[in-house]
């Protein structure tokens, strides 16, 4: 998706990942497919309640090893249990430092976790127990990570907007005017309609080829309408409020 220069480890390297309107929109569109596939994979399993006794530990352990593998060096990635991880050290790979201000480290994963288990999962998943708790947990983690990435991409979108129209939004930020910032981000409403229609279309197109019975159409765009889009917007506003800190 981004232009990158390929150099060997010994040479000084610079990532040239670009974040602008087009690349951010393209990334978000690509993430829709990831989320839809992850959802299809999760609903392959019934609810499998015993999974949820294990899940917290399982996610913590997996994030710890992914941390060691440098997953969280990339500012696009946000752990669910950052308090469980060692302090972040200098990244090995020079990911583009695009985000600025105190908002760069916003992490609303605790809220996403709550919403996922309390509201989202019951909507999509059938009751039942087939014993596949580890596989279910990993299907949950994959879906959670995709949703989290989408929502936290709001930071990148907000930074693009800030750079485009700093003169307009800076006064709102200094006044800590949330409402004005929401309005400033209003072009998002048009964008959001496009997103929802596209998600519905994807689910329909992919759904025709699916080997399992599950009527998804309405449900998946609700996922976006009720949670993904509002939470992305929340991240955008919070990011901008801290942009000058």
């Amino acid at each position, binding site marked *: 998706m981004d232009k990158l220069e390929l150099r060997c480890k010994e040479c000084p390297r610079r990532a040239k990942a670009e974040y602008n309107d087009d690349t951010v929109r393209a990334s978000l569109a690509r993430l829709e497919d990831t989320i839809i596939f992850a959802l299809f994979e999760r609903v*392959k399993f019934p609810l499998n309640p*015993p999974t949820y006794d*294990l899940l917290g530990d399982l996610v913590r*352990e997996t994030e710890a090893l992914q941390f060691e593998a440098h997953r969280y060096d990339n500012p696009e990635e946000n752990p669910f249990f950052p308090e469980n991880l060692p302090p972040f050290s200098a990244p090995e790979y020079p990911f583009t430092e695009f985000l600025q201000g105190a908002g760069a480290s916003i992490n609303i994963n605790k809220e996403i976790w709550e919403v996922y288990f309390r509201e989202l999962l019951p909507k999509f998943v059938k009751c039942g127990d087939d*014993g596949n708790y580890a596989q279910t947990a990993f299907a949950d983690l994959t879906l959670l990570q995709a949703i989290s990435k989408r929502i936290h991409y709001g930071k990148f979108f907000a930074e693009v907007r800030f750079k485009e129209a700093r003169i307009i939004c800076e006064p709102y930020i200094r006044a800590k005017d949330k409402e004005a910032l929401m309005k400033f981000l209003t072009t998002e409403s048009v964008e959001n309609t496009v997103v929802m229609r596209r998600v519905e279309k994807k689910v329909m197109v992919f759904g025709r080829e699916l080997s399992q019975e599950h009527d998804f159409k309405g449900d998946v765009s609700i996922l976006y309408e009720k949670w993904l889009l509002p939470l992305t917007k929340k991240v955008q506003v919070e990011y901008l409020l801290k942009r000058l800190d």
Partner: protein
Amino acid sequence: MAKAEENVYTLASVREDLIRQEDTIIYGLIERAKFPSNSHTYDEKYAQIPGFSGSLVEFVVKNTEDVQAKAGRYTNPEENPFFPENLPPTSVPSYPFSQFLHPGAASININKSVWKMYLRDLLPLLATSGDDGNYAQTAAADLSLLQAISRRIHYGKFVAEVKFRDAPQDYEPLIRAKDREGLMKLLTFASVEETVRKRVEKKATVFGQEVGLDSDNDGKGKSKFDPTVASRLYKNWVIPLTKEVQVEYLLRRVD
């Protein structure tokens, strides 16, 4: 899915499961194709993780399998680890998975071959050359795809068991004679394999397309990956290796 009750594997259920597994493999291909080759992921000289010698993908796969083992993944006979040596025991109450497979043959594990095939043959076809620094996510995508491919290939044990129970008289003489070629012939249905390949390619085309709101572009537009990679994967490796598992399984079936 592994079942709790005995004898819930039938020719029909096994076929249905294999078809469902195609979707999982194709999603896995598409998600891996999101990243370029990221060769550092596979380079053991690059990883330099304290206390671990091996590449980053080995680190991620081995350690994730350990986490999954403790959560009981490998108590399901349909699942086979890539690094079975020193896998921690499960620490969750055991679930009564159906013990459908013949005990002498149930533990066949050809994942070392699957691993080699994946790195040497599949990845060069699947990933465009380049580096974006996302080695951990690349390894995670590798793990998902490897697990999906492995599960499909080792499902051959269930296919073989169903076929054997259906017509033991067809298989027993060949098994006793250790006639690998004869068994392979009995298990090969070229027209069925062609149907599978065609269906896989169609699904890969549909799931792999970039869907936009401009309906004029549907099906003619860009793709997230090359769908022929999916049918080649099946033709060159998944189908032959599944048959190899079936043959090896059957050879131990009357022990």
